């Protein structure tokens, strides 16, 4: 990571201390962010490898090289890794950790040691979850639905306990960020002067702190049920399997907003910077983040329209789900309006942001089909849902994540990545992504169920196109990670404080920043995004 000969006189956060131990015990939020980078990217590559294997297996209607059980395990691993070890910690823990104190003019987060503890929670939780592989793997899907998960292999206990421990990483990060945002803002930086990424981290942190404990308790109950047979979810023991779904989605629906809201925050930063124009509708964007996070707690039942829950509940959830679409639509309009009469430049972060805008819009409108009660009955648990979910999570959250990674890359590393290859990767992921998932919308509407190892031959052409697409997406993301890693060690040196011409505080300090961020704590006198 550190490159001693070029930075030996600089004294920045990367080279101020040396040796592996100095990294493993660091309480500098920027170093912790880089440690998250390593963990998250490693899991992203593993989760992505599983995705490519799944798609390869699905090339033919009959089994190609996996048994049914192997397919189910790989599917579970792909989902669990991507959700719990990549997307949930991705933006807040990695980019949030790096940017939050810098953007509010603070020396660090409020509880630096707790911040390091969060990293260890993620690593230990992930290690416990990965141990399940040595007990034969888990085949329940990342949703762990009972009674199946109560009867399935012992390895379930490991994954569930791993997710429980990783939950603490999320909760502690959330607490840390809320306190940091309230208490450590630079003089003059009022809430209404906060950058929108900070607003999004704030909205996210609220969900992390309130919702994650519910998942923790649910997963513990599942472990108790498996170990002691206490009978919460298994009807044979007097439990209720639908109750598990209520508990699970009470966390896991807000959790998709843990994944998407911070990515939305990045998009606000990137679009303002690369349009060189003040963000349109600052208040609307800030408040819509809070609105989304509030309403997100009240829509979990739309995952259960056909589960046997009461019809009345389904109707209420349908209307509430539509309402969560409103603040989302507002954000999309605001971002496009920000480009109006700006000075748009299509550098890599902006290209990823445009990927986000277009793909997330498709993710959003296809959500309308699924929120409409009668239509969902037909589309529920088909590939339509798989495609919708990936448009929001991969097309939305991860595209935003990569936009942010490239955007803050020079500041984080003190080097430039290869701009040309960066643009190529953005275009490749866009093309490959659509080739992968548009066929899934069509076959889903035609009735292709999800989580199928073998399938009806009529869906074969769509599956084939989808598999070809997955290779292009994979190549695009591998290229993106390659140029980042290469850029870290061999990229052109960047000493410019503000290479993109942004207006937020992180761009006023050295590149890369010094150990405690600012030589002198800045005083803020105006709103962010004052491009005049």
């Amino acid at each position, binding site marked *: 990571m550190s490159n001693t000969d070029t930075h030996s006189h600089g004294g920045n956060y990367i080279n101020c201390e040396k040796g592996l131990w100095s990294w493993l015990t660091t309480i500098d939020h920027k170093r912790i962010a880089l440690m998250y980078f390593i963990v998250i990217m490693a899991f992203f590559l593993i989760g992505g490898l599983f995705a490519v294997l799944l798609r390869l297996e699905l090339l033919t209607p009959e089994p190609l090289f996996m048994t049914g059980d192997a397919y189910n395990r790989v599917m579970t691993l792909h989902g669990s890794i991507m959700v719990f070890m990549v997307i949930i910690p991705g933006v807040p823990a990695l980019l949030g950790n790096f940017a939050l104190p810098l953007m509010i003019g603070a020396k660090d987060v409020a509880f630096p040691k707790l911040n390091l503890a969060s990293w260890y929670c993620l690593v230990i939780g992930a290690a416990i979850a990965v141990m399940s592989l040595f007990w034969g793997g888990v085949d329940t899907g990342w949703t762990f639905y009972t009674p199946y998960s109560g009867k399935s292999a012992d390895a379930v206990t490991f994954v569930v306990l791993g997710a429980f421990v990783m939950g603490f990483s999320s909760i502690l990060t959330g607490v840390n960020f809320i306190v940091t945002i309230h208490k450590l803002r630079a003089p003059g930086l009022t809430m209404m002067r906060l950058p929108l990424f900070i607003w999004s981290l704030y909205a996210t942190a609220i969900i992390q702190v309130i919702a994650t404990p519910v998942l923790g308790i649910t997963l513990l109950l599942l472990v108790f049920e498996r170990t002691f047979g206490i009978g919460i979810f298994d009807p044979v023991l007097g439990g209720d*399997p639908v109750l598990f779904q209520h508990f699970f989605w009470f966390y896991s629906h807000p959790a998709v907003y843990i994944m998407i809201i911070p990515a939305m925050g990045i998009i606000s930063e990137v679009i303002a910077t690369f349009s060189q124009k003040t963000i349109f509708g600052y208040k609307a964007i800030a408040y819509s983040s809070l609105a989304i996070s509030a309403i997100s707690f009240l829509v979990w039942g739309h995952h259960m329209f056909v589960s046997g829950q009461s019809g009345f509940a389904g109707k209420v959830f349908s209307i509430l789900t539509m309402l969560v679409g*409103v603040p989302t639509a*507002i954000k999309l309009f605001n971002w496009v309006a920000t480009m109006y009469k700006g*000075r748009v430049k299509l550098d890599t972060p902006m290209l990823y942001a445009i990927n986000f805008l277009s793909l997330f819009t498709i993710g959003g409108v296809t959500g*309308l089909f699924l929120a409409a009660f009668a239509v*969902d009955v037909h589309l529920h648990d088909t590939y339509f849902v798989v495609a919708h979910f990936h448009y929001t999570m991969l097309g939305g959250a991860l595209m935003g994540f990569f936009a942010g990674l490239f955007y803050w890359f020079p500041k984080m590393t003190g080097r430039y990545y290869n701009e040309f290859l960066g643009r190529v990767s953005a275009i490749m992921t866009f093309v490959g992504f659509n080739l992968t998932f548009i066929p899934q919308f069509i076959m889903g509407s035609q009735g292709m*169920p999800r989580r199928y190892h*073998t399938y009806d031959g009529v869906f074969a052409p769509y599956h084939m196109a989808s598999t070809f697409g997955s290779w292009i997406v994979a190549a695009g993301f591998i290229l993106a990670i390659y140029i980042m890693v290469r850029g870290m060690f061999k990229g052109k040196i960047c000493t410019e404080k503000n290479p993109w011409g942004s207006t937020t505080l992180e761009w006023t300090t050295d590149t890369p920043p010094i150990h405690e961020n600012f030589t002198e704590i800045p005083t803020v006198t105006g709103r962010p995004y004052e491009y005049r």
Partner: protein
Amino acid sequence: MRFLGDILQMLFGFSLPEQAAENVHLVDDLYNVIMLLSIVGFIGLMAVMTYFIIRYHRSVNNKSAYIPHNLTAELIWTIIPTIIFVGIAIWGIIAFNKMETVPSNAYKINVTGKQWMWEFTYKRDNLEVNVADVMYVPVNVPVVLEMTATDVLHSFYVPSFRIKRDTVPGMKTRVNFTATKKGDFKIFCTEFCGTAHSKMRGIVRVVSQERFDQWLNREVKEANISDPVELGLRVYSRNCATCHSTGTNTIIGPGLQGLWGSERAFENADKLVADAEYIRESIISPNTKIVKGYPAKMNSFAGLLTEKEIDHIIEFIKTLK
């Protein structure tokens, strides 16, 4: 209105399965309308964005304007989506209500989801028939399914009828439909249920009322046979036929022809003449007496077969002369 619905169906219908039940248009009409709105909205937004990118690209525009907000625009793009979204929600709820209304004369079939098969139970005059994987229903007759599961969650999905509902152990769920086309329609399990989840498929066979009655009569008759030999044959084919032939040839164990009343020699016991007690013992505790020349491969059927079923098998074996 129907005219508009048909035009949309022509445009987007290709992405939906065949329409084979009464209420499918309730789903399809709304699907098509949302599709139209989505495509118009998406293309509109992308067109505006693309125009901005080209028109205000840094190479052609060197001064950016300062426009922090615009109340009129923001009100418009808040209120219009709200109305559209809530409108769609209400439409979806009304359609769902219609789909959920079960006609009072609906014909009832019980459905049980099991790893990894569907079982359908029909009732006629206090007699029950269980059939697996193929569900016969009469055309143009409302049918209501009362569903449950025995092991884990499953979900009963017929794409051509646009119906789907989970089957939950310990709980009854219901779904109803009126098939309007004769033919075979696919049933999928759509709730993940383990190893062979993707093979848990079945068929709804929609036939005329007349054929349905014929079919059900035959099934009822077959299911309620009282002849012990006939019943024994059925138990035999389900449990024994893989290893024991009805001739004298060996599959894995000895063939059953001529068994009754013959003298048997064993590896580990004295000779005896095969009678009811011996056959019973061979089923419950197969390794007590291993027939000479055969491996000790058979597992006990204790608990798997009832006393009655064993009696029936014995009656059946008696006939194999």
